[in-house]
């Protein structure tokens, strides 16, 4: 039975209990909530700052996600629960704060921002807002300084609610390269997957993955997948998954449907060019199930649902795809409306089991 909520006007479709949302964004009520965790000189220097030029020209967050109490979307835990967690019957939400620390030329500044966001998240959304333990957090790191990032990961190793390490996709070099090893070593040692989220591509010190800067937001946003593809090919071909057999990567908000064709291409290249990467012990695509998870939002929706279902089959969605909503951002995917009708066993894998297994929830 379809119901429409009288207060919010949102049409509700019946959903099973206990889904896991792998991408929810939370924000401090104000920047002082972050600054209080910073030492000088960073405290005075930190003035926030986003990803720069490419802002959605229409709106960046759901207009109805602005809390009645004031403040920005994603800053009020009671309202976030009321609008998203409760009606969508979310058992766990994996929180990804947006510190944008990876664009700074000064690695110490980036590291200080990352650490302050982690302290803030631990005290608020993973602490006093989280008495029932539904919120799970991401450890923000500044990958400009991999050794410092590894120490930051270690600092949170015993925390009950941090479940992964996260970084922006923006980088100076593809993530498979060995200067990043200290990060992956720490991830593996402490059992944290490494999540990549779009951000800071082409900003500050980071390369832009398209040829030059696109003119429009629609180009930039469509092409978010580019850096994800480059990072994934790098991880596999550089042998990171051989070097760190327990290491896992989560591709968050980088698109979904490109995955099978990219893997076809890489597997085909491997037949001739294995010579160049002899440390690989199997076909590139065969690393995915053990080492890579991909979150669903923003899910592409071709006119023909059957085409998407075929893509899900081709990409082994049953084992690697995890639902994400991206609440409260503008391109939010509704748990009940973003996907076409799925076979129940596949739906359980995508909306619950794959994330439960990855994060030990």
């Amino acid at each position, binding site marked *: 039975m379809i119901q*429409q909520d*009288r207060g*919010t*006007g*949102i*049409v*509700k*479709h019946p959903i099973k209990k206990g889904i896991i949302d792998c991408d929810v964004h939370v924000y401090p009520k104000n920047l002082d909530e972050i600054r209080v965790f910073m030492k000088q000189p960073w405290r005075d220097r930190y003035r926030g700052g986003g990803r720069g030029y490419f802002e*959605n020209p*229409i*709106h960046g967050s*759901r*207009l*109805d996600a602005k809390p009645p109490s004031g403040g920005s979307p994603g800053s009020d835990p009671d309202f976030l629960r009321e609008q998203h967690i409760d009606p969508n019957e979310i058992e766990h939400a994996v929180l990804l704060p947006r510190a944008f620390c990876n664009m700074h030329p000064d690695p110490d500044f980036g590291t200080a921002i990352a650490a302050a966001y982690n302290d803030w998240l631990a005290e608020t959304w993973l602490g006093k807002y989280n008495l029932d333990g539904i919120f799970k957090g991401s450890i923000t790191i500044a990958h400009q300084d991999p050794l410092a990032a590894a120490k930051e990961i270690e600092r949170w190793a015993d925390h009950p609610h941090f479940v992964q390490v996260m970084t922006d996709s923006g980088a100076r070099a593809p993530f498979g390269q060995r200067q990043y090893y200290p990060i992956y070593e720490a991830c593996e040692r402490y059992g944290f997957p490494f999540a990549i989220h779009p951000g800071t591509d082409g900003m500050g010190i980071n390369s832009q993955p398209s040829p030059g800067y696109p003119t429009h937001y629609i180009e930039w946003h469509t092409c978010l997948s580019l850096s994800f593809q480059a990072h994934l090919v790098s991880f596999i071909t550089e042998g990171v998954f051989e070097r760190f057999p327990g290491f896992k990567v989560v591709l968050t908000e980088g698109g979904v449907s490109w995955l099978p064709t990219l893997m076809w291409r890489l597997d085909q290249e491997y037949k001739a060019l294995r010579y160049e990467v002899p440390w690989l012990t199997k076909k590139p695509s065969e690393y995915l199930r053990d080492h890579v998870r991909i979150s669903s939002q923003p899910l592409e929706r071709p006119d023909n649902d059957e085409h998407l279902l075929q893509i899900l089959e081709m990409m082994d969605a049953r084992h690697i795809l995890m639902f994400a909503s991206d609440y409260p951002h*503008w*391109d*939010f*995917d*509704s748990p*009940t*409306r*973003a996907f076409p009708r799925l076979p129940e066993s596949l739906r359980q894998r995508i909306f619950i089991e794959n994330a439960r297994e990855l994060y030990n929830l």
Partner: protein
Amino acid sequence: MGSHRVVKTADLPVGKRQIVYLEGRSIGVFNVNGTYCAIRNSCPHQGAPLCLGTVTGMTLPSLPTHPGEYLYGREGEILRCPWHGWEFDLTNGKSIYDPNKCLVKSYEVTVEPEESPGIETFPVTLEKGWVVVHI
């Protein structure tokens, strides 16, 4: 399937909206530059509360010979979904990107004089009256 007095014309000035609940449906009633329109408060895309969106204008189709040139118009006639920003024509519920395949239900709206108990309808320019939505 009835007619419902939803708001007095004086309480719904140009550019304003009223969200009402009629016969089990949430419906947005808008004063679009003096004309009253009503559409279902649910986006056909993912079920967002469409009528909480931004009332605005739109970039009109540019001349094919002039990419990069913006022609802006239809101020007040376009409703943008509060979630994904899809544009809808308030006057008929049709989306801008594909009017034939993506549309939201629109309802007939008339204005009745404030004093009259009858069902006779009057031109929408009436200053004192009721906005009536016909389901």
